[in-house]
């Protein structure tokens, strides 16, 4: 076993992968949100469609998106590996355990939250990404370029209150996941300092509230606009 696999197969190494992929996904959320917010620009989806188009032709963005998918998978696979390992570490459960007195609910349920977010992700990808990539999206003219009309897919989807509800709920899960995951990633990387950790924790909490709220705001606004 080389030193690389030895390190990455240790409990610490596995956590390192979770933290690194997690931080990457946190950054991805910011970029994704920046794009999504363009849905709210009252220009019949012109900016959004242009943005979606540019994303799909830029090689850099496309390679990053492949990395992104890989990291999502890595994050999921390693979480499963770790969870199985952790379950084995306590073969006989306690009859009574008061976890709530010593830790936050989110920190103890990252796996469940992650699973729910992953289900959302699958639905989300099926609804948008898959239809853009493999469906036959309508075309629309933006300036003098013909681009896929991604905007209309979104508009259609967010007319469905059940889907909007599912989306918003999933953002709540995401918020809880981030509320622990953000600061936890830094801790795993060893970035803990009396001066900076309290800042990281506050930023993490702010991030966990702000980003999912903005994400959730979009379907709500669009749904309200549609009725």
């Amino acid at each position, binding site marked *: 076993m*080389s*030193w690389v696999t*030895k*390190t990455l197969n*240790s*409990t*610490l*190494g*596995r*956590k*390192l992968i979770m933290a690194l992929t997690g931080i990457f996904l946190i950054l991805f959320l910011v970029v994704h949100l920046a794009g999504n917010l363009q849905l709210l620009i009252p220009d019949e989806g012109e900016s959004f469609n242009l943005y979606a188009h540019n994303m799909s032709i830029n090689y850099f963005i496309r390679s990053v998106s492949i990395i992104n998918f890989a990291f999502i998978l890595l994050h999921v696979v390693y979480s499963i590996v*770790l969870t199985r*390992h*952790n379950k*084995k*570490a*306590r*073969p*006989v*459960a*306690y*009859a*009574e*355990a*008061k*976890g709530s*007195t*010593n*830790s*936050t609910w989110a*920190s*103890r349920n*990252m796996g469940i939250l992650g699973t729910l977010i992953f289900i959302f992700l699958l639905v989300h990808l099926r609804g948008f990404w898959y239809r853009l990539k493999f469906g036959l999206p309508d075309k629309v003219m933006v300036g003098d370029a013909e681009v896929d009309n991604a905007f209309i897919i979104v508009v259609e989807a967010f007319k469905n209150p059940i889907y909007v509800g599912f989306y918003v709920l999933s953002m709540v899960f995401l918020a809880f996941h981030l509320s*622990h995951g953000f*600061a*936890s990633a830094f*801790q*795993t*990387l*060893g*970035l*803990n*300092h*009396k001066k900076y*950790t309290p800042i990281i924790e506050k930023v993490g909490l702010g991030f966990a509230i702000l980003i999912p709220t903005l994400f959730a705001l979009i379907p709500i606004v669009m749904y309200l606009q549609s009725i």
Partner: protein
Amino acid sequence: MNLTLKVWRQKNASDKGGFREYKVKDISEHMSFLEMLDVLNEELLEKGEDPVHFDHDCREGICGMCSLHINGKPHGPLQTTTCQLHMRSFNDGETITIEPFRAKAFPVVKDLVVDRGAFDRIIQSGGYVTVNTGGVPDANEIPIPKVIADEAFDSATCIGCGACVAACKNASAMLFVSAKISQLALLPQGKVERKERAEKMVAQMDAEGFGACTNTGACSAECPKEIKLSNIARMNREYFTASVTTENV
């Protein structure tokens, strides 16, 4: 006060074990939790029943031998050792559930007694400074800034009781291991072998079958000696740095 005790009984390591209920009467609030168990055991002996076995020794909160998972928490409701827990923390008529610490790496020996030898083996893998008796420099030739010495001390106060493992939902031993790695990484005496130490101790920790860390903070919240989570971050740092910089391919 009168209490109902729901106690885990298990004849030996291979026995399946299960809970049994006992009643104890006229318990004084000044008794320590272990003294309350002494009362129970005296009664059991008088009735001709096998007393409940549990680990304990110093009964002043420092040897780390007492354990017990009481009402869902290691060492019970207070952040202290079971021997320093007094019955004034409980109410008359209460039912108290008493279980052994649960972890694959801490197998049950009998009743509430578990084997924490894994901790010894982790220390043996590198929790020391390689220095023989004699031939060392004068103590004051190694000045250590007070803040560093104090921080190392905070880590060094670990009593090896295993409450961190017991509290962790993953039965992880990171707090224990990181406390020792931190103490020795902070001090100039320990810095010399810090990399090797981090690699070896983490490897041994994994080999013992402890879980990984989810940073829930339960370990630190339950630690009778209030060992801080920052130790775990330091261990991670030490370990990753060691992994990429040592010449152990």
